[in-house]
Every structure is written in C-alpha cells, then in structure tokens.
C-alpha cells in the first residue's frame, strides 16, 4: 500500500514536471502580447530582455488611433459579429430543426451536400463570392457584404440537428394534437429546449466572425469600413508604424474574447468538441 502511494506521488510529480514547462511555453506569446502592449516603442526595440509590463498602454492606444481609425474598426467588428451571430444561429437552428424533425423529398441529398462541403477548401468559393458581391452587386464596403456571404456553415446545422433529434417526440406531438402551428412548436417548445446548444454555437460563430480576416480583407478594404483585424493587418509590415500601438490593438482584439472564453469555457469547449461527434 505504501509503495503504491509512493509510485502515485512519483507519477504525479513527473506529470507536473512535463506539463508546467509546456504550459509556460504555451502562455508565453499571450503574456508577451500584454507586455508589448504596455511598452513604449523604444522599450520594445531595446537590447535588454523585458519580460514585465510597463505603463504605456493608453499612450499606445492613442498611437494606434493615430495610425488607423481603430475605434471605428472595433465598432464595425462588434456590430458585424453580433448581427452575424444572431442571424446565423437563427438560420442554422431553423435548418437543423427541419432536418431533424421532418421527412421530405430531397432530405438525404441536402444532408449529403452539406456534409460534402466540410472538407471543401474555402478558396473554391471565395473567388466567385468576391466577383458576385463586389462586381455584380457592387456591394463592396458595406455591412451586408461583411455579414451575409459567410452565413452558411455546415457543422452548425449538424450540431443543431443533433440537439433537436434528441428531444422526445411526444412533446411536439402533444402540441400538434392541441392544434399548435408548426412554427409555434419550433419557437415556443423546441428553441427554448435547445438553449445550451444554441449558446455553444453562438460562441463559436461569434468567435469566427470576430477573428475573420480573409473575407473582410477582400471585400471591405476601404478605410472607414474595415473590421478591426483588417485595420490592424494593414499596419503590420509598414515601416513607420508604432509597434506598441499594434500590440495594444492586438490586446483590444484578444482581451474581450479571452474574458468570454474564461466565463463560458464549458459551452465553448462543447461547441468545438461537437465537431468530432457526428
């Protein structure tokens, strides 16, 4: 018995001896992001090793604002991410409900095509999307261009479909006997029951929209209509730019999402893990 608890202790110690350094290495870039964001440019480009935060964050934010209208870009990003999340959760839930609870002609074909798009490279669709939105509809640099084309997602529908199919049939049949309309069954009974799944989906979609770079870069590259990642991206690679400012921007982009992550970790992990359960 004693030797067993001793071997447990050794196992526990070696476990932590591996994990602690690995975790520190993993946290290091995040830590440095916050450190850089608080340092003046001469501190970032000094020959000393600087590992602790300084006090120049506000100054860096105003340097950033001088380089590009980052506050406006943040407001656009927030607006786009919220609108996108609400619309996408609604569309995806409706489609997931239809695919889970009704039998209709073409259902298996629809599911097969949606599944097929999971492994399809995004680059196959982004070129025609760009031509359509920018050239045919002449809608580059608008809110609609940022929000609507990315609305389709395949994993979300399968995620919602799974949640709806696990609910007991009797619940909905009882309502039908009472003469409740189909859309009311969806809105009043099914949706409230699917709330945890919707929360997980909403977090993943919000994150995807908030961090989206390629599509906003292509379609909304006019100053004043850029999202925050695009605005920040234009500064990277310029020569006369405040790097403290860029890092302050990186923190403004990252900090809110980290707070959401810490508060809603369970939903967040459920959303990502759902990618694996088919």
């Amino acid at each position, binding site marked *: 018995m004693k030797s067993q608890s001793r071997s447990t202790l050794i196992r526990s110690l070696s476990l932590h001896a591996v994990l602690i350094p690995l975790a520190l290495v993993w946290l290091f*870039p995040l830590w440095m992001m916050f450190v850089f964001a608080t340092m003046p440019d001469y501190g970032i480009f000094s020959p000393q090793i600087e590992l602790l935060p300084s006090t120049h964050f506000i100054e860096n934010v105003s340097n950033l604002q001088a380089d590009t209208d980052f506050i406006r870009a943040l407001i656009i990003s927030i607006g786009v991410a919220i609108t996108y999340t609400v619309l996408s959760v609604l*569309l995806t839930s409706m489609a997931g409900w239809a695919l889970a609870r009704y*039998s209709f002609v073409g259902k298996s074909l629809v599911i097969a095509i949606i599944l097929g798009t999971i*492994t399809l490279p995004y680059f196959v669709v*982004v070129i025609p999307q760009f031509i359509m939105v920018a050239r045919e509809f002449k809608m580059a640099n608008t809110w609609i261009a940022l929000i609507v084309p990315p609305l389709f997602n395949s994993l979300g529908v399968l995620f919602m479909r799974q949640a709806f199919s696990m609910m007991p049939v009797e619940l909905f049949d009882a309502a039908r006997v009472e003469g409740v309309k189909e859309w009311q069954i969806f809105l009043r009974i099914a949706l409230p029951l699917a709330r945890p799944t919707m929360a997980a989906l909403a977090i993943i979609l919000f994150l995807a929209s908030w961090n989206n770079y390629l599509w906003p870069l*292509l379609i909304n590259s006019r100053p004043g209509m850029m999202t925050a990642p695009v605005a920040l991206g234009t500064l990277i690679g310029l020569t006369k730019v405040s790097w403290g400012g860029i890092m302050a921007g990186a923190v403004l982009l990252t900090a809110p999402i980290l707070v959401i*992550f810490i508060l809603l970790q369970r939903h967040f992990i459920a959303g990502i893990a759902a990618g694996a359960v088919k």
Partner: protein
Amino acid sequence: MQLRNRAAYGFLAPYLLIFAAFWIWPIISSFMMSFQNTRINPWVFSPGANWGRLFTDPAFYNALKNTMIILVIQVPVMITLATVMAVLLNSPLLKARGLFRFAFFAPVVVGEVAYAAVFRLMFNLDFGIINKLLNSVGIASISWFSDASAAMALLIIAVTWRWAGYNTIIILAGLQSIPGDVYEAATLDRVSKLRQFIYITLPLLKPIILFCVVLSIIGSMQLFTEPMLITNRGGPGGGTETLGLFLYRQGFTSLNFGYASAIAYTMAALAILISLLNLWVGRDAK
C-alpha cells in the same frame, strides 16, 4: 402528415437560399472559370490558359512544395503534441486542471492577425525576445525572416501554437468517452500504463485522431494569414509562399480569377484525395 412535412421547406428555405447563392453557385462558377481566360474581356473558354500554365509555372511548384513541407512536418508534430496534452490533461492526478486547460486552449480564441503581430515581434532578428533568450544560453541569433528554412520553421511553430489546443479539445472529448472500466480490468491484469495507452487508448482514439488529421491537413493546406502577415507576404523571396498566398496574389492582386480558380480546384483535388485516404485508413475503425 404530408401537409406537416411541407413546413420543413419553410424552415429550410433561408438557409438553402444562402447555401445556393454563396456556396453551390460559386463551386460551379469557379470550376467554369478555371477553364476560361479571364485576362481578356469578355472571358473566353480556353482550358490551356490556366491549367496549361499551372503545370508549367515554377511559382506554383514553389508554393506547392512549401505547402507540402509545412503539412508533412506541422500536422504530425501538432497531432502528437495534442494527443500528449489531452492524455496529460485527462490524468486524475492533475492539480489546477483549469489553469492548464486555459494555457493550452486560450490560443484557439486568439485571432490570426493578433498572434501574427506578436510572433513577428518575438522572432525579430535584433530585438526579438526569442533571439535574446537564445543568445543568453550561448546560441547565435537566427534570422527568422531572411533565412527561408528558419522562416518555414517559424510558420510551423506559429501554426502549431495556435491550433494544438483546438485538437486537444477534440481528442480530450474522445478520451473522456472511453469507459473507465476498460482500464480497471487492464490494471487488475497488471497491464502497465504505457501498454494500456498503446493497446487500449490509441486504437479507441483512432477515428478521432484521423478526424483531427484530416481537418488539420485541410486547414494547413489553405494557410494564408500566417505567411501573409508573419513572414511578410511569403518572404524571403517566396521562401514561405503557400498555395493560399499564391492564390491570393493571382486572384486578388493580379485579378486573374481564372488562374486563381485553377489553383483553388487543385487544392480541392488534394482535399478530396486526403479525405479518400482517410476513409481507406479508417476503413476497419467501425
């Protein structure tokens, strides 16, 4: 019954409309464009203009080669690391589990632009913290941005940092779905922990690990933001230009949509090949 099922179309309609307009039509459209010369107005059917050019374009082979090198090194390293992280995080002996989970999962929520900026500063030749730390243990500074191999290594490090946690989450969920009594029986039979891992855990995890491998290959194949922002548009001199960046240049800098579509369909062909390979490898998994 029939009337009720008709309601399904109503629920599906908005989603399918978006799907048709922004996915189905583009899939067809870019396929057709890949056979058209889009550098003249109006566009004309001319299969050789893009496909003929693609297979003789040294820039394409350079991008393909770089993408393959990243795939072949980055995906196995990251999946191995993610499996190790998941197994360690799943250990009942672990203290402060929440802290470790935060450390490994947090990069998943960090935007590509934000982390690209940090990595650029950290790996700066003269002032970057990485070279300073290397110097302090007696290793000479590495020119992460002007040496092509070092720049490739930098991309691999960056992508691994960003995505390992994502795969860890998925593999950890798989680990937690393995019933505990399997291990109890093995422990009673005095099977060592290592052998339990090799003969019980890995075979049961195989479908999930394969899923992660396929998603990672398809993700890394489309690598764009990192070579664009970290190594400064595929620098040095195309040394880190990936297929994604090559496509971006052709499609959106040179506005040659036909040629870009041919590149996109080359990626799609690779993705299909990899998915088929996955089906073949995982054929006895179920």
